[in-house]
């Protein structure tokens, strides 16, 4: 099995060095080294409990490492989290929206938290709602939205402040085929726009099709790390099985 670092650390936007995260006595990430360059779309794969969500929360500054270093854009986390947070948009399997507010009110609230000027925020909200296909539902409470619509609005929320980095934690959870296709297009557009994207997912075919690089986490370390060029869902599935079963056997 080939295991290599896709990029030199000199050009990395995100870097973890010997990153350890433990919950009590249970280690989730074990000296994880990872380097991600600006503009990459990394699909983060791995079985449940392999540390994908934990890694994303650490990169977002929502969680503190037990040991090791995290550098995002040259800033060290969690000590210098504030400037990093302004550059990060996050989408989770939870939608991070207020059900009793409508789509525009939700985005306005977050625009205020990101200190966007009101006029600029309104313009950006209109543009994003149009982009995610919710322009007609802008005044409807979020509780009336389907899961797919809520997830699209969640993407709009994550893109509101025009972040350099998008962190997506299993964003396809609960989406039907159509909603997944809409999300695919949104992510392609975001990637084309030069954003660095890290997405945890269990959908191997989608990972191979969308991402520029795939990282398989296994038992808290990188088990496989390679560009997706030449990979399809089937090939990736075989690599995934091999990587995770080897880790289980150890």
């Amino acid at each position, binding site marked *: 099995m080939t295991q290599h670092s896709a990029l030199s650390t000199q050009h990395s936007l995100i870097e973890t060095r010997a990153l350890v995260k433990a919950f009590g006595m249970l280690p989730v990430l074990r000296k994880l080294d990872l380097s991600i360059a600006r503009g990459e779309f990394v699909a983060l794969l791995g079985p449940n409990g392999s540390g994908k969500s934990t890694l994303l929360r650490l990169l977002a500054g929502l969680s503190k490492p037990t040991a090791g270093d995290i550098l995002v854009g040259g800033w060290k986390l969690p000590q210098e989290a*504030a400037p990093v*947070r302004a550059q990060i948009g*996050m989408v989770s399997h939870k939608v991070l*929206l207020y059900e009793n507010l409508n789509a525009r009110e939700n985005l306005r609230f977050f625009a205020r938290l990101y200190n966007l000027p009101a006029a600029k925020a309104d313009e950006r909200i209109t543009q994003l709602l149009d982009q995610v296909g919710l322009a007609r539902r802008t005044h409807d409470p979020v509780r009336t939205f389907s899961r797919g619509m809520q997830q699209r609005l969640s993407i709009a929320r994550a893109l509101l402040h025009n972040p350099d980095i998008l962190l997506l934690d299993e964003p396809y959870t609960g989406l039907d085929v159509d909603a997944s296709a809409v999300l695919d297009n949104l992510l392609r557009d975001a990637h084309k726009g030069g954003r660095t994207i890290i997405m945890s997912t269990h959908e191997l075919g989608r990972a191979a099709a969308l991402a520029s690089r795939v990282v398989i986490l296994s038992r808290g370390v990188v088990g496989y790390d390679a560009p997706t060029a030449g990979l399809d869902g089937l090939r990736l599935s075989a690599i995934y099985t091999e990587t995770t079963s080897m880790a289980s056997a150890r």
Partner: protein
Amino acid sequence: MKTPFLKAVFSIVRKDLQIELRSRELVSSMGLFALLSILIFSFALELDRNARREAISGVLWVTIVFASVLGLNRSLAMERDQGNLDAMLLAPIDRVAIFFGKLIGNLVFALVVGLLLLPIMTILYNYNLFQPWLIAVLLLGTFGFSTVGTLLAMMTVQTRARESLLPIVMMPIALPVLLAAVRASTNILTDNPIADWIAWVQILVVVDIIYLVVCFLLFEYVIEE
């Protein structure tokens, strides 16, 4: 690069008020609970006028405290259940701004319920509760209780047994506020001279300040996983 502190605080307050105006979930459930409580107390305490007057402050504070606990749980659950707390933590704001935003919202809802209780209890207990000192004590007591309650609710909302855990954790810690508020209120309602009870109001002010400072210092640690 950071959002100004006050802008973040008032954005959160505005959002909470907007949600409450839309849903009326918090104030209606707190208000209904409070109304039922004072009705039950009113029927249960068929006392003479003097004894009833001494019991009023107890009824008032028991009702406000448990209605506030109900509101605190729901207010923080709203942030936790849909992951909205994470969304706020992701924003470039001082994390303490989240505490102050939620505190002001919770305080407003508790005060609305407290102030609604005054005319109802005035009618049911046939005793005028619209007394300036009583309203001042109500404000101070509710502030102290909401301060410590917001911090503790932020902790307990992350647990499975949050509904029952919050009052268990909160009552011992909020005891100084409750004790001072009940003592001051009883003295005010029984027309005792101000010199007899002003010390309780002073204690209430001091405890409120201590709670505010301690909660301010602890909040960042509380919201860490």
